C-alpha cells in the first residue's frame, strides 16, 4: 500500500510500517492462497487463528496491563486494510479484535479481562457477538432471548442468528434480556463449551463464504452471575450503542480498502483486455467510469480520515459514524458493480477476484446496522 492510500496519517511510524508489512505477508502468503479451500469448507481453520495470535495480529490494541501490545488504532486500521486488500474475508480478525475484544477492555471486570483477553490475543479463544435474533436484527430493543436470575447465576433461553464466527467461537458475548425495556438488556460472556449451548447450521450465504455464520441456541444455559459483562445489570443497550460507533468506523475503513483494490484490479484488467481493436481503457466510457470511481474513493478517504481523527479525539458522534457507514458501503457496492461490468463476462466468473468481491460486498450495506437504520440515525440528528 502506498503512503497516499494509508490512513495512518500522523500516526505513521517505523514500528507501524514493520507491522503493516508483516500483516500483509500474513494475509497474502498464509491466507489468500487458502481462501478457495476455506470457502469450500465455509470456515477458516483454527490453526490460522493460532498463527495470527502467534504473530501478534490479534487484539493488538488491548492495553499492555491486560496482556496486549497496547498499540494505537492505526495498527487495527492497518490490519483491516491489508486483509481487505489481500481479498481475505476469513478469519474475521476485525470482528474478533475490533468489535469483541473492546467490550472486555471497556466494560469487563478485572476478572473477566484476565479470564478471556489472553486467550483472545493468542487465538485460543475465538470471539463472537450475538445480538441479532430470527425475529429482529437492527431493532435491538425488541430482542427476546432471556437471562433469568436464579440465585448466584442466570439461566439463559433463546436463539440468535447470523452470528459471525458462530461456528468457531469459544466465547460469545450474548445480548439477553434481564428485564423489560432497553434498560433490561445485559451482555453475558458465554463459553461455548457450556451445557445448554448448541450451534445450528453454518448458514449458506451469498458471499463471504469462508467466514462462518451460524445460528446459536441457548436452552436453560446456566452462567454464574460473574458472567454478566461489567457485573451490573441493565447496561447492555448502552454498551452496544456505544461500541457501534467504532464498528461503523471500521466498516468505513474496510469499504475504502475494498474500493481501492477493486479499482486496482479493474484498471489493470482494462489496460490489458482488447475489444474492437483497442484496449478497453481506450474507450471513453471506461475512463469516465473509472475516473468517477477514483474521485469517489478520494472523497471517501478524506471523510474517513476526518472520522478517524474525530474518533481519536472522542468526538465522532453516532450520526457522523452512520454517514460514514452508509456512504462507504453504498459506494463500495456501486463501484464494485461497475468494476464487474468493465470486466465483461470474466467479471461473472468466480476465478476472477472482482466477482468474489461483488458477492462479498453485498452484505456491507446490511450488517453493522442496515443503511436504512443509518439514514434514520442521521435524519433524527437533523431536527
Amino acid at each position, binding site marked *: 500500500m502506498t503512503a497516499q492510500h494509508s490512513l495512518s496519517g500522523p500516526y505513521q511510524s517505523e514500528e507501524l510500517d514493520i507491522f503493516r508489512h508483516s500483516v500483509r505477508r500474513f494475509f497474502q502468503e498464509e491466507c489468500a492462497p487458502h481462501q478457495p479451500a476455506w470457502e469450500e469448507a465455509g470456515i477458516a481453520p483454527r490453526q490460522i487463528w493460532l498463527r495470527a495470535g502467534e504473530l501478534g495480529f490479534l487484539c493488538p490494541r488491548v492495553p499492555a496491563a491486560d496482556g496486549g501490545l497496547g498499540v494505537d488504532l492505526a495498527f487495527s486500521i492497518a490490519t483491516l486494510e491489508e486483509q481487505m486488500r489481500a481479498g481475505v474475508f476469513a478469519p474475521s480478525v476485525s470482528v474478533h479484535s475490533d468489535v469483541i475484544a473492546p467490550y472486555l477492555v471497556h466494560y469487563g471486570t478485572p476478572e473477566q479481562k484476565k479470564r478471556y483477553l489472553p486467550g483472545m490475543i493468542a487465538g485460543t479463544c475465538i470471539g463472537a457477538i450475538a445480538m441479532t435474533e430470527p425475529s429482529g436484527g437492527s431493532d435491538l430493543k425488541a430482542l427476546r432471548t432471556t437471562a433469568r436470575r436464579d440465585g448466584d447465576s442466570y439461566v439463559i433461553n433463546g436463539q440468535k442468528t447470523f452470528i459471525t464466527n458462530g461456528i468457531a467461537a469459544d466465547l460469545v458475548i450474548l445480548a439477553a434480556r434481564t428485564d423489560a425495556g432497553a434498560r433490561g438488556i445485559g451482555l453475558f460472556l458465554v463459553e461455548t463449551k457450556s451445557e445448554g449451548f448448541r450451534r445450528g447450521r453454518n448458514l449458506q450465504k451469498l458471499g463471504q463464504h469462508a467466514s462462518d455464520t451460524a445460528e446459536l441456541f441457548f436452552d436453560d444455559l446456566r452462567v454464574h452471575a460473574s458472567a454478566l459483562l461489567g457485573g451490573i445489570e441493565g447496561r447492555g443497550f448502552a454498551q452496544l450503542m456505544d461500541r457501534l460507533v467504532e464498528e461503523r468506523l471500521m466498516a468505513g475503513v474496510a469499504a475504502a480498502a475494498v474500493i481501492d483494490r477493486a479499482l486496482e484490479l479493474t*484498471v489493470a484488467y482494462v489496460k490489458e483486455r482488447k475489444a474492437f481493436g483497442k484496449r478497453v*481503457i481506450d474507450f*471513453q466510457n471506461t*475512463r*469516465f467510469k*473509472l*475516473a*468517477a470511481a*477514483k*474521485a*469517489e474513493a*478520494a*472523497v*471517501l478517504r*478524506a*471523510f474517513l*480520515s*476526518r472520522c478517524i481523527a474525530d474518533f481519536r479525539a472522542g468526538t465522532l458522534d453516532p450520526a*457522523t459514524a452512520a*454517514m460514514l457507514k*452508509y*456512504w462507504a458501503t453504498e459506494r463500495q457496492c456501486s463501484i464494485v458493480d461497475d468494476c464487474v461490468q468493465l470486466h465483461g463476462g470474466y467479471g461473472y466468473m468466480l476465478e476472477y477476484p472482482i466477482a468474489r468481491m461483488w458477492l462479498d460486498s453485498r452484505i456491507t450495506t446490511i450488517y453493522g446496522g442496515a443503511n*436504512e437504520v*443509518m*439514514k*434514520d*440515525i*442521521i*435524519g*433524527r440528528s*437533523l*431536527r
Partner: protein
Amino acid sequence: MIRSHHYTPAHEDFRTTVRRFMERECAPNREAWQKIGFTPPDLWRKAGDAGLLCTKIASEYGGGGGDIFHCLIILEEQTRIGFGELTFYLHSDIIAPYIALYGTEDQKQRYLPRLASGEMVCAIAMTEPSGGSDLQAIRTTARPDRNGYVLNGQKVFISNGHIADLIVVAAKTDSGAGGKGISLFLLETKGAEGFTRGRCLKKVGNKGQDASELFFDDVRIPPENLLGGAEGRGFVQLMQRLPEERLIVSMAAVATMEEAVRETVAYTSQRQAFGAPLIAMQNTRFKLAECKTKATLARAYLEQAMDSFIEGNFDTTQGAIIKWWATEKQHEVLDACLQLHGGYGYMTEYAIARRYADQRLARIAGGTSEIMLDLIGRTL
C-alpha cells in the same frame, strides 16, 4: 465552523464584516438586480471600500493580503442571503490573479489597485461561439501591428461582460501554433473602438449576474497590454489557473449544499401534511440524511483540498476530482431539496427554486463534468 489550522480568528472577524455587508448592501437590492440582470458599479465601489474585493491580492497593490479562506467566507455569506450569483469571487480570485501572477510590474500597478477599490470591474473572455472547453481551437486573433495588436473575433457567455471595465481576452497571436499561439490581452473597455457588447444573455439561472457576448472588430491594444509582455504564454497561464478556479467553484457548491439542507430541514419541520410535519415522514428524513451526508463529505474533502492548496500541493487531478464531485452532488442535493418543498419549491420566490436553477451552471462552467472525468481518467 471551518476545520483547518490555516483558519484563524482574523478570518472570523472578516466574516462579520462580510455578513454585515451582505445584509445591508446586497439583501435589500437582490431582487432589483435580478430584475435588471446585473450588479451596478456602485455596489463594486462599496465592496472595494469595505475590503471585500481582491482579498488575496498583496496589500502593496491595494489588495487585502489574505488567502483563499477569505474567498470562501464571501461565498458562504452571499449564499446565506440567497445571492450565490454575485461575482466578487470571479473578479477577485479568478481574474485579478492573472495580473498579479503573470502581469508586468507596470500592469500590476496600473490595474490591481483599481480592481481592489472597485473602480474597475473585470471579466475574462475565453469561450467562443464555436468552442468552450477546447481552448486550443479559439479563433479570435491578435495581429501584431506597428502600435501593438489588432484584435478580431467574438466571445460568448462572458460573466461580468456587460459591466466589465477591464477584460482579459484570450486570442491567437500565431494561428499556426495551437496552444503556443495563444496570448492574453488586457482590454480597457472604456473608449475602445471596435469593441461592442452584445446582448445580456437570458440564462436558466443566476439572474442577478450578467453574461454577455463580446465582439472585437479591429480593436487596438497597445503593446504594454499584452499580459506579462511576452506572446504565446496564454494557454499555459490559463491552464495553471484552472485548478484554483475549480476549487473556488467547489467552495460555492459546498456552501450551497449546506444552505439548501438547512433550509429544507427548516421547511419540512414547519410544513404540515396529513396531520404531521413533513420531516416526521420516513422518506423525508431519509432523503435529508442522504443530502446531509453528501454535504458533509463534500465539506471534508473541501477542507482537505484547501489545506493542500495553501500548502502548494493542489494539482489538476485534485481540482478535477473536487469540481466533478462537489458539483454533481450539489445537483442531486438541490433537486432532492426542491422536491421536499413541493409546489413552493418551483416558485422562484423561494430560495431553493433559485438555487436549483443557479447551480445547474456549475457542472458546465470552469470545464464541464465530462472534461473533469477526462482529466481524472488520464491519471489511471
